[in-house]
């Protein structure tokens, strides 16, 4: 079984599908792209404070390491 930290291997078909999605996106206006791109989803812990600030990016990364692992914010 592939470990979660292993970068995925990309197949030709998937690559072609991505290129098609890029072509399709290029045919949309910026207004359309933004309309469908920003989707509000609640992220536990991360979204439970209205304001957070960190003196350094290291402090921020350490905070991210405390978030639920499945959110994907932790360092590999």
């Amino acid at each position, binding site marked *: 079984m592939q470990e*979660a*930290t292993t*970068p*995925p291997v*990309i197949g030709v078909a998937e*690559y072609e599908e*991505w*290129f098609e*999605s*890029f*072509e*399709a*996106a*290029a045919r949309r206006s*910026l*207004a359309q*792209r*933004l*309309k*469908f*791109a*920003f*989707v*509000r*989803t609640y*992220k536990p812990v991360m*979204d439970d*404070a*209205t*304001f*957070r*600030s*960190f*003196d*350094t*990016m290291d*402090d*921020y*990364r350490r905070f*991210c390491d405390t978030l639920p692992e499945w*959110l*994907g*914010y*932790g*360092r*590999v």
Partner: protein
Amino acid sequence: MAGFEYEQAQRVAETFEKHGVRYLLIGKSGAIVLGYPDTTQDVDVYVEKTPENGEALVEALLELGFPLQQREQDEIRRGKDFVQIRTGPFDIDLVFAPDGIEAFEDAFGRASEIEGIHVCSIDDIIRSKEASGRQKDRESLPRLRAFREWLSTQGRKDRSSSSE
């Protein structure tokens, strides 16, 4: 809370311009403005870390409707590396020192302006995600690199059509 739509993006660009905020969209939101098809929930803004820019940024955010408390305003002015705000008209992350990018001025020189919005280059967006070491960034990198490759073919197409 509303999403981040075109009118809002334009208003941000205009308000930042009015207050002289030096900024670049970065992260997935920046890539989306460049044409990358994906979803995200917050706007990541790379802001130049200077006292003048911090002051301008606070004024601009207040005008945009972010209800910043005095303490929060002071923290932004003081120059943190990362600030996350979830009380405004849209979710915003202010990044003053993104991983993988040495200097704002250099990133600004490589950036694009799309419909008035300043956006990091795709190289810088990828570089910052490579340097962050986060699981979610690592997973998004293959598709972002493919997008960079696709963008470069568009540049070649543009050059060949303009030389015809």
